[in-house]
């Protein structure tokens, strides 16, 4: 494990700092006794060497620490991705975003919490062994173990108190931004903003780091004063103060730090995702031949029905409309459906859906650099190229103007040799289908969620 390198190098860096202080003090106190010059030579060389070593070792520690954590991240990302790969259910977008930020958080935790703590413990152990002075031993146990644990516990309590307020503030923020124009237009914005500000104030009273550094400093000087009163030599007292200095940062726990990091089996990171559920299939499988339109009033559960059909199919057999657009080129996004497609096939798919984008255009995160209609047609082009056994489309031409929409859908259906199931609102399109399936209003059907 490379993280051990970083810990050892870090401890050596800090120890050379401590030793520099102790040696320099010894040098001065000894010089005051006016011994021959030769008695000081070793100490002088040591002071200079330690001064050089500290900077270099710190630099090496920083690099090896980051390198170890980044290597760990490669493995962690791969593992998290693989476990997602083998789940039956795909978790929601929010759960996935949370998962990714937890992976980042885990890296930070290793680098900013675990590494400095391990270095401080190692330095303390050496200092305790060298000095064999009980005030130092007791003090270091306090600043290395007791106070950090207390501050972590305090932070945990504050975090719990803050979590719900934060969630509330996030909700209020989303509401204020999404509804901003409407809120302003209907003169509700200031009242909503004042409400969010009340949450922000309540939050600000609670969220600050659990900082016991002043207490740790008190321990540091109490130990030094006790050592002084016991008549310990000056180099030992000042060395002890320097050793305490290494442990002081541990008594402060930032509120953002991760709760726990036990890299045990059965990765706890994944426990935030909902567990796999086995959904029972739809009873509408007689739909699956020819070209079928699903129509019905708003809220009748058309999308729910389509999703249920999609779940029943082998993933590669049905192409569902709710698709992700990757932050890459139009070509790469469409090629996903058929990596060995020829340029001809690509151009044909593009022509069928009237996609007016260059193949090499980069679409931005979630396709935010192209228009909604273009994004929609890009997904349709991908679907055409995939040429699935069962074509599933949920209002595929929403966002296109009506005549254009009808033409595109007609061309897509003509191109489809297998089965097609399409949710639509446009009565004008119904002539394109073999069957029309009417979904009744909500109370006629057992619909679990409105799409």
């Amino acid at each position: 494990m490379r993280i051990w390198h970083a810990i050892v190098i870090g401890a050596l860096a800090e120890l050379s700092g401590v030793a520099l202080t102790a040696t320099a003090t010894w040098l001065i106190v000894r010089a005051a006794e006016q011994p021959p010059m030769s008695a000081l030579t070793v100490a002088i060389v040591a002071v200079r060497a330690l001064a050089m070593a500290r900077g270099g070792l710190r630099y090496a520690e920083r690099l090896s620490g980051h390198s170890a954590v980044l290597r760990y991240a490669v493995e962690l990302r791969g593992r998290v991705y693989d476990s997602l790969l083998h789940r039956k259910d795909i978790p929601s977008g929010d759960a996935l975003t949370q998962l990714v930020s937890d992976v980042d958080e885990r890296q930070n935790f290793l680098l900013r919490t675990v590494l400095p703590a391990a270095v401080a413990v190692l330095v303390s152990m050496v200092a305790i062994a060298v000095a064999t002075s009980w005030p130092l031993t007791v003090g270091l146990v306090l600043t290395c173990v007791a106070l950090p644990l207390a501050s972590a516990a305090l932070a945990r309590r504050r975090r719990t108190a803050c979590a719900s307020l934060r969630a509330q503030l996030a909700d209020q923020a989303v509401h204020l931004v999404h509804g901003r124009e409407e809120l302003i237009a209907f003169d509700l914005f200031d009242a909503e903003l004042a409400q969010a500000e009340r949450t922000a104030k309540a939050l600000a009273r609670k969220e600050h780091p659990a900082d016991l550094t002043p207490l740790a400093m008190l321990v540091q000087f109490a130990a030094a004063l006790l050592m002084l009163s016991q008549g310990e030599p000056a180099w030992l007292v000042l060395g002890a103060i320097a050793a305490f200095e290494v442990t002081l940062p541990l008594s402060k726990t930032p509120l953002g730090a991760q709760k726990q990091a036990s890299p045990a089996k059965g990765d706890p990171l994944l426990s935030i995702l909902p567990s796999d559920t086995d959904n029972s299939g739809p009873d509408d499988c007689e739909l699956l031949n020819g070209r079928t339109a699903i129509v019905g009033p708003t809220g009748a559960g058309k999308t729910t029905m389509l999703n249920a059909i999609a779940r029943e199919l082998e993933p590669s057999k049905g192409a569902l409309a709710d698709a992700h657009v990757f932050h890459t080129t139009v070509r790469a996004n469409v090629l996903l459906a058929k990596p060995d497609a020829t340029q001809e096939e690509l151009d044909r798919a593009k022509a069928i859906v009237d996609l007016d984008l260059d193949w090499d255009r980069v679409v931005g995160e979630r396709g935010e650099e192209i228009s909604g209609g273009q994004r929609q047609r890009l997904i349709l082009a991908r679907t055409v190229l995939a040429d699935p056994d069962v074509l599933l489309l949920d209002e595929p031409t929403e966002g296109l103007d009506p005549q254009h929409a009808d033409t595109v859908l007609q061309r897509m259906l003509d191109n489809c040799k297998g089965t097609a199931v399409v949710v639509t609102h446009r009565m004008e399109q119904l002539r394109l289908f073999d069957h029309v399936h009417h979904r009744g209003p909500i109370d006629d059907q057992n619909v679990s969620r409105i799409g």
Partner: protein
Amino acid sequence: MVDRRHLAALIPVPFLVLAQADLLARVLSGAGGLALLVVVVLLRVGVLWLNRFLGRRAAATTKVRLRRRFLEAPGSRAGEVATLATKGVDAVEPYVAGYLPAMVLAVLVPVAVVIRLGFADLTAAVTIAITLPLVPVFASLVGAHTRDRTLSQWDALAALGGHFLDVVKGIGTLRAFGRAEAQSVMVRQLAAQHASATMRTLRVAFLSAFVLELVATLSVALVAVPVGLRLLDGGVSLYTALLVLLLAPEAYLPLRTAGSQFHAAAEGKAVLDQVPAPRPSGGVTPPDLFVSEIVLENVTVRSLRDFNLTIAPGERVALVGPSGAGKSTILGLLLGFVRPDSGRVLVGGVDLASVDQREWLRRVAWMPQRPTLVPSDLSSGERQQVALNRALAREDAGLFLLDEPTARLDPGTEAQVLRGSREFIRGRTAVLVAHRPALLDEVDRVVRV
């Protein structure tokens, strides 16, 4: 924006640092003063506690102010604002409570130390006074040299780092096309690339910290060894030598703290840079819409180029055109949410930009394309109906704006929307974004965008 009142409480710190070193040197050289040292140590811890307390309070005040600004800022994405208002604002804490005090101490303490040493031992004072400025000078030299190199790499890093989020969020799509397995290797490859690219950047970026540490520790050696040698000749007293030894690192320590706080505070500074300007308020009273002409004069913004449109009072206009042509942008201009890059929007001859927006919006009934101020457990059609009813409830509105009401509606709901708006727009100025032919029968004029 940033609360700085807590910085005044830092003034006693340099005096306490000097007093503590002085007394410790006395005690160690056998001159007594242990009781006084205990008092000074207690004072120092007390002042530290007070500083942390005030810093925390200043951070809290700053955070409340920032959150308010972010929440009222226009034209931003909801996810971004939610992140900024919760986690993002947190990053300001190290800036306010850590970096700012460290910067103040980085000036106060070294100056105090050099002055005190000037009285005790001139050689040491001069050595420190010369090497001290080297720390910021070297750090900024190294920083300037590395900035260009790191900047060019950050973009690449961000792209590589973003890939993981992108594939994780798109895993449903990847699986649907049977491409998920292939990405498993890609995830590891790109993460490995990300790791080595990051390390290349860090090797350079950490150099400035390296210089800082090196100058600080070397200077202690530079001060300690000559003082020890002069002690040997009896040139200085043990008390003075110890004082020099104790004070020398104190001169560099605040600079090192400021250096490390600088990196911790960088994120907070970035957040502060993103603080939007406060919302403008006030303006002239809007003209009476029942008699005022509305003119869009050579307006260029988003997809509109030199767009001109004149709407007479009481006229009903439908906007048609392909998606992305700028129909919704025109409604945004009329609402005042979109400001023209060039050109003007005039109401009764008055520039809409100078009109009090709140007063203006009280006279407008608006139904948005995707209403959000409705309970989320409704279907999209039901949401449209709720939004329409709310717009129609504004009975004294002189202008009615309706955006693609029928885009997602079944025919039943559509008929209801038509009926409702038909009655409402009688006698009012109306601008409708239309996708369906049915709506076009209700208007006086159709404008192709």
